[in-house]
């Protein structure tokens, strides 16, 4: 009996082996390299200069001296937060409606939501360029309707649209999957105990969907904070984001500073995620 149990435990550990190896080679080793590069100079001597440069480098923007990378970081954070908020406000009701639709319709709609994800990210971004340009599809449509054309391309709005479009499914899917599993009797119980529709949403559906909301937010916020390319194409390169900065340094063969920016971003995101998880747990424990 006892031996069997021990054998089982060994077998379990052995089964984890391939995954462990994979994680080591493709997650831990690269992370270690990022940290190693971040804290070394070109001759691979230890230095904190790269980290310090992120916080202290200045440049002149619109005639005023600013901290270059802190400004870029702030801009990335702002656009990412706006995109995440838009995704949440649009995605939450859609996820709810989706989870209450007839099962066959649910499958069709989920597929429709996922289809854009099968297309290449660059192609999707180019498609939005075609739509949003001053002479693009959107303005063509507005003109055909005798409405005033709008200037979107090259604004922060265009960057947000691009981010929302690219990351929207990542918001819907985790919220949808948790709502689809939710026991419908709980809603009936809440109504039975005196809640109107809004009360049911506020006191039962939302708190129970919180884990889905947290992972939706995480899955949208993190890629949109570190995105590049969208801002270059839809923002006409006017809104240099932290991802663009990393890419720029990397392309300029400035590997150590690129690693330092990536490292700082990672630490900030880890702290943010830990705080969010803590908030979710404290909510769940009430």
């Amino acid at each position: 009996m006892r031996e069997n149990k021990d054998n089982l435990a060994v077998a379990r550990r052995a089964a984890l082996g391939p995954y462990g190896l994979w994680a080591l080679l493709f997650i831990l080793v690269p992370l270690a390299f990022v940290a190693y590069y971040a804290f070394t100079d070109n001759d691979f001597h230890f230095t904190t200069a790269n980290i310090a440069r992120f916080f202290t480098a200045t440049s002149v923007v619109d005639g005023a001296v600013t901290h270059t990378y802190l400004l870029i970081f702030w801009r990335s954070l702002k656009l990412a937060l706006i995109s995440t908020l838009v995704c949440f406000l649009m995605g939450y009701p859609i996820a709810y409606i989706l989870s209450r639709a007839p099962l066959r319709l649910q499958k069709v709609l989920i597929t429709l939501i996922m289809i854009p994800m099968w297309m290449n990210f660059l192609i999707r971004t180019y498609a939005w360029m075609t739509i949003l340009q001053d002479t693009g599809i959107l303005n063509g449509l507005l003109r055909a309707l005798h409405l005033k054309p709008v200037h979107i391309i090259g604004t922060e709005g265009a960057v947000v649209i691009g981010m929302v479009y690219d990351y929207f499914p990542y918001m819907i899917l985790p919220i949808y999957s948790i709502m689809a599993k939710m026991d419908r009797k709980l809603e009936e119980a809440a109504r039975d105990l005196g809640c109107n529709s809004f009360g049911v949403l506020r006191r039962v559906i939302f708190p129970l969907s919180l884990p889905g909301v947290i992972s939706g937010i995480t899955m949208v916020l993190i890629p949109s904070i570190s995105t590049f390319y969208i801002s270059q194409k839809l923002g006409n390169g006017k809104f240099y984001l932290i991802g663009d900065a990393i890419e720029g340094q990397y392309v300029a063969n400035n590997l150590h500073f690129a690693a330092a920016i990536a490292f700082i971003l990672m630490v900030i995101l880890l702290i943010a995620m830990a705080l969010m998880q803590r908030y979710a747990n404290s909510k769940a424990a009430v």
Partner: protein
Amino acid sequence: MRKIIELKNVSKSFDGQKVLDNVSLDIYDNEFLTLLGPSGCGKTTTLRIIAGFEQPDEGQLFFLGEDIVALPPHKRNVNTVFQRYALFPHLNVFENIAFPLREKKAPQDEVRGKVEEMLRLVALTGFEKRSVTSLSGGQQQRVAIARALISHPKVLLLDEPLAALDLKLRKDMQQELKNIQKATGITFVFVTHDQEEALSMSDTVVVMSEGRIQQIGTPIDIYNEPKNAFVADFIGESNIVNGVMLRDRLVRFSGRDFPCVDEGFGKNEQVDVVIRPEDVDIVPEDRGALRGTVTGVTFLGVHYEIIVDIAGFKWMIQTTDFVDVDEHIGLSIDPDAIHIMKKSEYSGMFGDYSSFSNEFDELSDAESEADE
């Protein structure tokens, strides 16, 4: 007694399938009323219409004389104990029970006092901070009852609340529910497919089948005076044979004339005759009004259940005397053990034990009405 709820000619269909067919029912103050019937008979739908989760296609629903069909569930003065309790997993025991009071924004002192009172009622004092997911089935059940009772509804609706509990716990909870009903004076409307549960707990039993009410009465009435073959078969075991009412107090069945206590049938009217298995006495073959051959014997602890072939019709008899398979025995039946029913659409469908099997019986009314 004051009438609290009145259903008047209520009908309801799902996807073209009639689930309730012209149901009329009065529910009175301080009564323990049970809706009893097999899966798909419409008992849960009736409950959900009273709660407000379903709208009747036709008919009216009155609450203290006022038509409440259009009233949403949260405005009705009834509360429900759900089949699998439907406790809120993100709230602890205290907050689950306090849920309706929080909605009314009751002051904290009042909430605390009332929740404590409810916890005492269901014997869960000290469980306030526990997570509902860590509770046993019986404890979750108690939380669900406390939560449903805390706003003192006029009527408590219970949807197969004991179905998920094991036998021993179920018996205890039956007693406890009965006590809670007496202590609070709240009307209970209880849904079950378990006839024993219905008989032991209720003041009034409503037997339903195929969306229609078959009989309403006290447990004793329902058992002793079933209205048709369905009720006779569903409530306990019954031998149901074809008979002819020769005149008042005399019936012919199985080729013999028997004195009985029923009157008021037409001369030579075709009837269904019900004889309960425990009302048949086994006597030596030559002294019996009926004679037959034993084809099966099952020992059930308190008694034996034997199947007897009488002229091709299999009877069930419960007896404490041992008889063996293939033995020839005589049966004697007292006049007051014979119950006469008018012929109905259910005649000939029940009451013959030729294909009898315990397991089959349990299989067919196990698992609850998930799709109802």
